[in-house]
């Protein structure tokens, strides 16, 4: 993709580094999200006969809160380039769920604690392997992911073989099932969620510093406790999110909202807020679709909603998006053509020793056929050139503009 000319780069960064990417960008995307929620509710209600009753609201709220937490904490994981750590840790949670089930039965709290312990063990295992052997992070994560998941699956098949009537809820941890969220688990989710948000707010400064400049952070504070705090937050969020997204797709819920939010803002606070909103939207809508159509697992639906948000963000985000980039390129191409046509007219006139010499159109537009004609039309409109038949002549203001430009760029 074409980038700006080198000479203009310092200018661009200079003016932009002191202000947010686009003032109001966050408000704009907030508004879009709100409208999207309204539209979603309206469409599902009107055309798909989804009834927004009490149960569905609980499920939707649960999905939304879990999505919000994933977005907020996922922002840090994405910015620290640890996206796939979430994948390894969510797979690693499975044996914890199975063992907790074998020990105490189907109690959501116990299952989540088991998941958290297993996930934490997975993180420690990755650290131990990378620090004591030549094996790199990617392979260590792969080993942990596959081995822990296999242990979890083996235990799950043993549990299923025992003909236990209440084991039905376990498979939901693989693909996620939001319909299982009841009011009491929603309250737990809300409670733990508020605690996570509170901790994030309290340690905001430390987390921010650690995320953007860990080396500098190490010179002014003890980073180890903060790192431990952050990985604990990630583990807790992953474990809670498993209920709706499942172990295989949890990584998507963790990083997609953060990636989308990153496109709209270059400030951490805005990014975190936006990622939370995007996550909540994906979680809520995915949960609603899944609960309304019980055949579909929740995890994949949430991931598809989140991916749509990412797609829209990558395309339309101001100053970064693909569409913005294309539009900027087009604008630059047009002004480049206008300037070149003007300068060619001027040079032609100079070579004939007459500022107002007539030039044949083909001579001027030879290189820029279509854009050149459009550029000439623009110059004529703006009174910088006049036309007679197929020949062109600079006007006074055109001459002035050309001379001014050449002076500036000498």
């Amino acid at each position, binding site marked *: *993709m074409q980038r700006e000319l080198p000479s203009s780069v310092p200018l661009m960064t200079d003016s932009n580094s002191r202000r947010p990417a686009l003032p109001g960008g966050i408000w704009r995307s907030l508004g879009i999200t709100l409208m999207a929620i309204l539209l979603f509710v309206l469409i599902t209600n009107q055309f798909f006969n989804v009834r927004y009753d009490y149960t569905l609201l609980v499920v939707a709220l649960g999905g939304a809160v879990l999505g919000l937490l994933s977005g907020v904490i996922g922002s840090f994981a*994405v910015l620290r*380039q640890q*996206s*796939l750590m*979430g*994948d390894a840790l969510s797979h690693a949670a499975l044996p914890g769920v199975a063992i907790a089930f074998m020990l105490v039965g189907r109690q959501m709290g116990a299952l989540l604690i088991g998941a958290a312990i297993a996930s934490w063990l997975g993180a420690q295992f990755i650290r131990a*392997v990378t620090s*004591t*052997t*030549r*094996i*790199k992070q*990617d*392979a*260590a*994560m*792969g*080993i942990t*992911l*596959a*081995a822990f*998941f*296999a*242990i979890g*699956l*083996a*235990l799950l*098949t*043993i549990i299923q*073989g025992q003909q236990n009537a209440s084991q039905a809820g376990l498979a939901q941890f*693989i*693909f996620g099932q939001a319909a299982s969220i009841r009011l009491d688990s929603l309250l737990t989710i809300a409670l733990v969620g508020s605690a996570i948000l509170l901790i994030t707010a309290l340690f905001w400064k430390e987390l921010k510093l650690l995320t953007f400049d860990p080396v500098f952070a190490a010179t002014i504070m003890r980073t180890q406790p903060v790192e431990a705090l952050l990985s604990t937050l990630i583990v807790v969020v992953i474990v809670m999110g498993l209920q709706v997204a499942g172990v*295989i*797709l949890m*990584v*998507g819920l963790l*990083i*997609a909202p953060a*990636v989308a939010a*990153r*496109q709209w803002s270059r400030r951490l606070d805005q990014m975190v807020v936006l990622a939370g909103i995007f996550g909540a939207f994906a979680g809520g809508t995915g949960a609603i679709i899944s609960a309304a159509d019980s*055949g*579909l*697992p929740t*995890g*994949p*639906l949430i*991931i*598809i909603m989140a*991916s749509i948000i*990412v797609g829209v963000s*990558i395309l339309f985000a101001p100053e*970064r998006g*693909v569409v913005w980039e294309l539009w900027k390129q087009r604008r630059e191409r047009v002004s480049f053509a206008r300037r070149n046509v003007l300068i060619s007219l001027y040079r032609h006139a100079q070579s004939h020793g007459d500022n107002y010499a007539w030039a044949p159109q083909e001579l001027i537009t030879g290189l820029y056929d279509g854009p050149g004609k459009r550029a000439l039309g623009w110059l004529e409109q703006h009174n910088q050139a006049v036309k007679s038949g197929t020949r062109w002549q600079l006007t006074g203001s055109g001459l002035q503009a050309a001379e001014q430009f050449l002076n500036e760029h000498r």
Partner: protein
Amino acid sequence: MYGLEQVIIQFLLNFTSQESINTILNDPRIVAIIIGGLVAASGGLLGVFLKLRHMSLTTDAISHTILLGIVVAFIVMSSILGLEPDLSSPGLILGAALAGVGTVILTELVQRSGLIKGDTALGLVFPLLFAIAVLLVSRFTSNIHLDNDSVIVGEIGVAWANTNTHCYTGCEDVVITPEHPAARVGRVCTNCSPGGINPRSPEAVFTEQCSNCGTYNAAEAWAQGLTDVQPLLVLWPRSITTMGVITLLNVAFILIFYKELKLASFDAALARALGFKPGWLHYTLMILVSITAVGAFDAVGAVLVVAFFIIPPATAYLLTHRLGWMLILSPFLGAISALVGYDLARANLLGWLPFSELIPGLTWNTSISAAMVIAQFIVFLLAWALSPEQGFVAAMLRRQNQRRHFEDQVVMGHILNHQETLEASQELATDTLHQHFRWTPARTQQVLRRLRRLQLIVITQNRVQLTEPGVRAALSFEQTLRTGS
């Protein structure tokens, strides 16, 4: 595939009888171990290069997204073309290979846009493709062969039952005509209808009809007792052929392009400078990974297959530095794990150590593919502990050796400094020697015993003295200290 199986069986029949081939191939344990071993061998070979290229997690992504290729190809073939594809049909393998390479290309595109960095792109692309695949599976392919459970754990345990039948002698089709002695012939009313003509009424017309007439192949005819000639049949599990061909493909690829692969994996920039095309090799490798993953999909599912690509190569990496050895060790360890894993799943180690008989009540019956991965993990942990260079135990031994070496040098240096001096009697008395080092007496005695055993010191009348070799050793140590090397 069918023809290939025929050639192999023909070859095997030169050595052994049809019964013994069938006994082996109808044993779920042996078939599962053969297939698991082939998956492990292919994955282990490719995994070595993926590991060296730091692409372990790309394998994870590919093994998830081939599901999308399989499902889409499945839906296209069954609902549009009206075929009945199974997992070894070329269409599905092609779809899966496209999906695998598509994942890699899509990820690289996202990375190249500069909007999303590194691994994050992978983490965005593969959950999306996998999510679409899971939704398609649960929506369009319900009640048929693909379901979300087999997607996760595979069906290696029943692979033995999915066979092609090969016939060698007595293979003539049996044609049952109404005259045949085995034909069941009866009179049937041709123009009767409920509410219309009653079979008892005079207008009813009867004809002779044969209910089992037709052409039967030899196997069907024998099974239904229509013939006396027992055909010579071999039931050959299809997955063995599929995985076998894929394994051979991988082996051939690595043998042919060994040099290029080695160069491109260790130094891609040099490879490019020398005029190789690492990009071309990269995509071929990705296609092979996809094909291997789809072949293994049937056996071990979409999620666990990644273990076969990552864990054995990592284990081999712990045990050796040499690429050649890694390529031998990695598939070997994978295959051993497949063997141990099957028995682990059935709580009956190696077929002769049944847990359930050792500890009453301890039986289980768990997913075979998961148990194979657990066995790989156990082998990994063992290698991590016992590896001669990077293992725990080796590190511990190394530390112990260093400590001993240090103790020896300290004591010998002390003796060297004092043995020709006036205070030698105080400094070198064995019972007070420990005070000079501030060690415990026991530790000091241990060091002295060791040095005596090595004949570096002698003890005469409660005094330690260096022997000739002891003096040389102590001097050479001082020398190294002084020169700092």
